[in-house]
């Protein structure tokens, strides 16, 4: 039997000694190799991938239920990972329906996608949604990582004002809500993501990053010393003010300590160039953003991510796959076969990004396993047939280590999407009793 040694937190040492000075990395602070593996085994991760403007439904759901389904056209890119994902039909977001609020299905469906809340129709500052699935998970997982969650996207936030008939752009610019009134907007520029993860240095080889952290640590030592000297000269009230500063310094020390104590600092990461900006093509952009998301998980900088392949009502065109038309107008296809064919092409391209993510996490090591084994992936759209703005029977895929793959299952008619989300959280070890309009749990897709 292996008894893992409990690493001694560097912070505890600091407290005990009543000083702010950073300490040399004592051997006791480095987790033993076995403990690291055990910790890696205990890690779980959540990734949501969102596809905008609904789907051509004829090509999304398999005609058959069960394991022997024929892979539909749109899902073809996922074929190599067939055993790692399940297709779920029958899940609804009833709260995204008008319910007396009139037009604006795009705004509503995006706002309710991870919250299950009927969002307030407003263009102003009085936004109202609910805390989202990813943020509930991040509240728990974020304790262990440097960054609680990443919100990434490919379409820049819309320029101004209303994005869909009376709904603020905040509802279509993100899936993530820290609370009912705090949307967490997506980052679209890979450079910004990179700097958030790794600081603004050029390199992310472990040596370089550790050097950067040491430099930071030395600066923190310096300012802590400075603050201490200053503190002696201050009155009681001002000392309290300075305490805020000192405790912030300690907070960052703690993060560096997390990094040192076997987290990101220890993992050898692949070479990754500091991105210059947003790449030209959709696929290049998607790829670099997915890579950064995987990198963040691999380095255990975060365990929760949402990724918007597109913004709801996105008018992006896809000349590279012979779809020069804008996506949103196209999604109102009026059952025109030509338009439907083009829409399917866009949908397939989007699903291919999900496949790329699955590919990356299947290849990436995580302790003695692969990232995919510890990751739960939810990929889908918040509209079914976009032509009719359908909010029921939403196109949904779940994948990863916690999922019983290789099958197409159908939830009982009228099952809220949030019921499935509650079960996803449970599989991740996050116990919640209610999410938005949930009425119970639906976990038939879990292994």
């Amino acid at each position: 039997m292996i008894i893992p040694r409990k690493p001694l937190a560097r912070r505890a040492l600091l407290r005990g000694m009543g000083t702010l000075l950073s300490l040399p990395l004592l051997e006791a602070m480095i987790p033993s190799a076995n403990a690291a593996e055990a910790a890696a085994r205990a890690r779980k991760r959540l990734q949501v991938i969102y596809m905008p403007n609904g789907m051509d439904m004829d090509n999304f759901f398999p005609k058959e239920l069960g394991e022997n389904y024929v892979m539909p056209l749109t899902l073809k890119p996922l074929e190599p990972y067939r055993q790692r994902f399940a297709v779920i039909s029958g899940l609804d977001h009833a709260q995204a329906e008008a319910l007396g609020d009139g037009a604006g299905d795009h705004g509503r469906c995006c706002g309710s996608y991870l919250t299950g809340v009927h969002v307030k129709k407003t263009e102003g500052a009085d936004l109202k949604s609910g805390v989202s699935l990813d943020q509930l998970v991040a509240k728990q997982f974020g304790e262990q990582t440097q960054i609680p969650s990443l919100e990434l996207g490919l379409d820049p936030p819309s320029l101004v004002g209303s994005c869909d008939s009376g709904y603020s752009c905040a509802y279509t610019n993100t899936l993530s809500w820290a609370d009912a009134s705090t949307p967490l907007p997506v980052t679209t520029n890979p450079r910004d993501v990179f700097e958030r993860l790794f600081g603004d240095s050029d390199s992310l080889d472990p040596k370089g990053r550790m050097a950067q952290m040491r430099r930071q640590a030395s600066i923190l030592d310096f300012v802590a010393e400075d603050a201490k000297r200053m503190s002696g000269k201050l009155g009681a009230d001002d000392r309290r003010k300075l305490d805020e500063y000192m405790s912030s310094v300690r907070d960052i020390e703690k993060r560096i300590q997390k990094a040192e104590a076997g987290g990101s600092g220890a993992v050898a990461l692949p070479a990754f160039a500091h991105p210059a900006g947003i790449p030209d093509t959709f696929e290049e952009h998607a790829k670099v953003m997915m890579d950064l998301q995987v990198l963040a998980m691999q380095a255990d900088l975060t365990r929760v991510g949402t990724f918007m392949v597109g913004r709801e009502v996105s008018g992006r065109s896809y000349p590279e796959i012979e779809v020069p038309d804008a996506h949103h107008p196209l999604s109102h296809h009026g059952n025109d076969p030509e338009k439907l064919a083009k829409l399917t092409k866009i949908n397939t391209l989007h699903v291919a990004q999900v496949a790329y993510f699955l590919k990356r996490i299947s290849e990436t090591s995580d302790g003695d396993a692969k990232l995919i084994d510890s990751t739960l992936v939810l990929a889908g759209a918040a509209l079914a047939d976009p032509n009719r703005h359908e909010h029921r029977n939403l196109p949904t895929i779940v994948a990863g280590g916690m999922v019983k793959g290789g099958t197409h299952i159908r939830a009982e008619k009228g099952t809220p999407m949030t019921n499935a989300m509650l079960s996803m959280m449970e599989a991740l070890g996050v116990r919640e009793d209610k999410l938005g309009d949930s009425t119970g749990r639906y976990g038939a897709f879990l292994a």
Partner: protein
Amino acid sequence: MNFKQHKHRKLGREAAFAASVCGLAIAAFGGTAILGHAAADPAPARPITAKIVPATLPMGADATPADRKAMLTRFCAGCHNDKLKVAGWSVTPLDPTNLNANDATWEKILRRLSLGEMPPKGMPRPPKANIDDFTHWLAASLDANGVANPNPGHATLRRMNRAEYANAVRDLLAIDVDFSNELPVDDTGYGFDNIADVLTVSPTLMDRYINVAGKISRLATGQGSRNPTTVDYRIPKDLFANGFGVPSYNERASDDLPLDSRGGGAFKFYAPFDATYTIQVFLNSNTSTENEISADNRYEVKVPLKAGLRTIGASFRKNLALDARLVEPTTDGDRPGKPEGDPVPLPLDVSVDGARVNTLQVPSFSTGPNVAQAFYLRDVMQISVVGPYDVRGAGNTPSRRRIFVCHPSGNLSENACAEKILANLAHHAYRRPVSKADIAPLMKIYHVGRKGADFEHGIAAALQAVLVSPNFLFMVEGDPAGSKPGSVHRLSDLELATRLSFFLWSSIPDDQLLSVAEHGQLHDPKVLRAQVERMLVDPKSKALTDNFGGQWLYLRRLEYQKPDRRAFPDFDVRLRQAMLTETNMFFDSIVHNNSSILDFLDADYTFVNQRLAEHYGISGVRGTAFRKVKLDPSLHRGGLLGQASILTVTSYNNRTSVVLRGKWILENILAAAPPPPPPNVPQLNDAKNGKTMTIREQMEMHRANPVCASCHTKMDPLGFSLENFDAVGAWRNAYAGQLVDASAVLPDGTKFAGPQGLQDILLARKQQFVEAFTEKLMTYALGRGLEAYDMPAVRAVRYAAEKDGYRINDVIMGIVTSVPFDMRRTPEK
């Protein structure tokens, strides 16, 4: 008045309380419960004792302290007694021979009496001569008390806010890049974002400080990454009213662009190295349905740039605007036909520091794959600079010259030079002489950075540390050795220099100010005045406009104001910018010319460009450049209340608001802010019996409710007089099918009408305005809310400024030499 919020609220409610609560209580004593009607009904409440008021009471020197007290007891104690304590105070403990014991209450009494609001309508009042005499005595006595018992209040350790941080970095390192957006937005208190008690430090902020300091120090020393990155500049644009498409502008967009240019934009780009950079220009696709920036519409050119601050521009030419074959927009479907024939090539100029460096030919309509139509002129949506490529060196930038005051050489070791550089930087950053104890820890960081790299990397590392040091981030003040807690003393010259430069420049002192302070001369009144005057004409005093003016006048809101484009098709980004420029230039000019602050109320000049002149109906102004114009009084544009910026930020997006405008005037011009509205206020209905009501009809319904009326009788008349200005500040004679009625009646019965009438009313209360302005400016200068004990200082500023017609320098000098600004209380340890 600007007391702490809770007090402030109580104060504002006083009138309502006295009229309704006290009236109510008295009514209840009398055995008749007349609920809630006290405020509406002029005389519902019987006084407890009906005494006969003599023709005059003892006045002036004849009035003994006992007479003063007797007057209070007779006319105020009906409500302000120990039992009722209306508005939180009672007459009982007040002692006219010891004002200091209850200075906050006495200040309240003074304010309400001066405003003529107390005793309330329906209650017995002493003769006016007695009230005037009493207020005169009270003000003089409170002022004397302020002199006898100077109380500078508590100055909390204050950190720089993000605007100050950015300015301080600019001045410390000669690097003119606005880093404020790299830091989170600061919270505000008392209407300003530099309030010490509110400026906290969070881990997120600390994280940003460390990162931003790293970026700045590398950029300034020329040690940044040599990997190419992209810097984007999105040109501010509107969408069309229907929400789709981006209009272009048929005028010169910026002073940084060539004279004959049309559209486009320019921005400041800091080139980190002498190197080659790619300038990318993203155009609109001139279709009706796209707002997006796409590579289909990107044009680019490679240019060599010298390291340092560059102005990068892209624009078209005026004489090559329209393609005659462009077709009108259609509304049937989103894919109308393309224009016939080949696109005409248009020259697109790329400029660096105002000079054309390259001209690209772009087709006059988009040939993007999803092009639908060519409705619009081509225009620039975004400019990006990608680089550096082929780096030739760190260059000779102003910041490298500022930082590297020496270079290691045969005679000068690296260590000695590093010490010299760091001592110089720390001296300016910490705003005080530095000692070995300051430099030694910095040298430690220098060595960490030096190890494995070179001398300049070591300096960059130590500079990063300077920029996150509490000595830089906080305005640290001390007390003389051995001073007793609670005792009051003057600031040191160095502390005064820092307060002064953060007040007037939102930044650190420059060499001259620091040197004067270090020589112990700053407290010399002549030297101090000379420094203040010098600082006010320095371009850095623009910070006073941006940070004080922008917040005092709510100008910062203008950016977020989104007037309804259907109701106000004339409003767009260009007009918004022009509005802001006008008020900023107006404020600047008052500061630079040492004008009277009464110009804020009735200047006979303003600053306009063609766009704004047309908005105002001023003829003869051509072009996008702003100029000073003399105002014809018939246009009603004199002073702040004729400026579109103010009229817009005090409106809703779809209509004017007499309440917002009235409240703005009470708060910012008269320092008599009304309390926030009670909860559960119903929305105004804009129709009655199916007929659209005018705002006046709507408001009159509203004011029929006595709870609302207590404040709205003060706010609404002020707002009504401005009803000829619509929600974007354009003049109108009619609204909702009726002629605008801009007449109004003040609570005291004074009738007036229109902007001119309002101006007369405000000028008649100029002392109140001067005090209001002083209170605001003093709050900003001190970084704390004002208290009752600050009011003698506020009045002293007014008295001193009166002689020369309230010139702004006198107001500022008054604040700078006031007890709260120039003194400090030794805190409890």
